[in-house]
């Protein structure tokens, strides 16, 4: 301890104090302040850039999600449209089918009616014709038969004979 106190130099202490004080002041002004500010601003810059990147990523994700939603919606819409169209088509076909059926049925009915009436008229005509013909034939036959006396007698005899048999 004595040795230390002996070695202690107040002058050196004083000089050291002054030098250290001046050095601290100078270093603060010319070195540490700009360095620490620079470091701080650089770190802030890096942090900001990172944040911005993160934000951009989030935004991108949002956008993507939006896109996907839109896409899904569009797809659903298309699907529904397609379905509607298909339904419409089916309906139209159905309608057309029933209509055609109806028309066809009507036409068939009409045709049948027409055929029936034609047939009837044709039958009536045929009947008339046939009756006329038969009368004609009968007239001819009767004329022929009744041209001589013998034959007339004979016919009568035949007819009578037949009638007795019956």
């Amino acid at each position, binding site marked *: 301890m004595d*040795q*230390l106190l002996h*070695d*202690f*130099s*107040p*002058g*050196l*202490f*004083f*000089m*050291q*104090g002054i*030098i*250290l004080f*001046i*050095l*601290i002041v*100078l*270093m*603060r002004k*010319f*070195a*540490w*302040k*700009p*360095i*620490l*500010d*620079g*470091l701080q*601003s*650089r770190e802030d*810059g890096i942090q900001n850039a990172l944040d911005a990147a993160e934000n951009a990523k989030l935004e991108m994700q949002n956008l993507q999600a939006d896109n996907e939603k839109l896409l899904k919606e569009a797809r659903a819409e298309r699907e529904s449209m397609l379905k509607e169209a298909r339904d419409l088509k089916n309906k139209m076909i159905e309608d057309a089918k029933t209509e055609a059926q109806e028309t066809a049925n009507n036409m068939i009915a009409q045709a049948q009616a027409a055929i029936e009436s034609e047939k009837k008229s044709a039958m009536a005509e045929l009947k008339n014709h046939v009756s006329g013909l038969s009368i004609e034939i009968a007239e001819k036959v009767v004329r022929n038969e009744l041209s001589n006396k013998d034959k007339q007698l004979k016919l009568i005899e035949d007819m009578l004979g037949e009638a007795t048999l019956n």
Partner: protein
Amino acid sequence: MIFLTMKVAKQTFKFFILVSFLFANAFAMADNSSKDPVVSGNKVDTAEEIREYISHHLKDSHDFHFYTHNESGTHYSFPLPVIVWTSNGLKTFMSSAFHHDDAGQVIVDKGDTKLVKIHSKIYELDQGATSVNFDAEHHATNAHKVLDFSITKSVFGMLLTGLLMLLGFGALARGFKKGKSVPTGFSRVLEPLVIYVRDEIAKPNIGEKKYRKFMGFLLTVFFFIWILNLLGLTPLGFNVTGQIAVTACLAIFTVVIYMFSGTKDFWAHTLWMPGVPVILRPILAVIELVGFVIIKPFSLLIRLFANITAGHFVVMSLIALMITLKASFGPVVSTGMSLLLSLFIMVIELLVAFLQAFIFTMLSSLFIGMAVEEHDDHH
């Protein structure tokens, strides 16, 4: 895994250093007691002379001495200005006026004042005395010390360090001022160190909000001590942080800073500790005050001083093995041993140079952190 092993190994190493320096210092403290004057320029070859030489080196000196040629006695050195405050006012001259005398033989006559240099200290002769008389313990009886504001070797080293710091960090600062966000060249080495001090020392100990105010002091002190420690390892032979005046000044700066930045809370907790019986409070206040004003700065200054002094002592002693062991082992073996051992200790010293700067700054910021801390729990 390898990284972890390395980390553990590093820690072991640090502890080894701490332990070894506790030991090294023990004999450093116990050993330098004899005080025979040795006129510099003589050949150093006995144990006694080596001890004298080392203790001379550990002290501050008034000239910058590189080497002395033995045969011709030529000194390769340059003088430094001596500025002393004597009883007759300020006296200035170059240290070459002492002609490398360190034993009070050469008297510098400055008109009304006679000055001599004894063991690297400048003494003023009492009125009427013409030469220095020594008592049995080799203390001057008719001379007294003067206030010595000389640009000694230590002051020179401090100025050099200051200049280096201003140049190096000034360049880094200019880079940032110019708007470059990434430094180039040597600044690239300095920048991570600044970030290290900020993120590992200041922020965790002082707190995210308040650290900024103290960065100027902490960074300056950290690099100041580190560079001075490293300068001490060069063959230039600086021993600045091994001067107790220097470390005392550093510690007092720390004390002043944490005393003046103490919050109301800190003072309340120091002087009138809440939550303890009233009778105990004054006792606690005394203990706390003694702790903050005396013990903490004392341990700061002693730690730095003792580590650096012990380091220089060990390195120089190991270099001196070359001479002391020459008689018993021959020149080759003793030189080899000396080289090997001093190389090993030098490597440790490089680490200690950093570690001491780190610990000084760390503890300073710890104390500052204690002083500026806001206690929100009133227990």
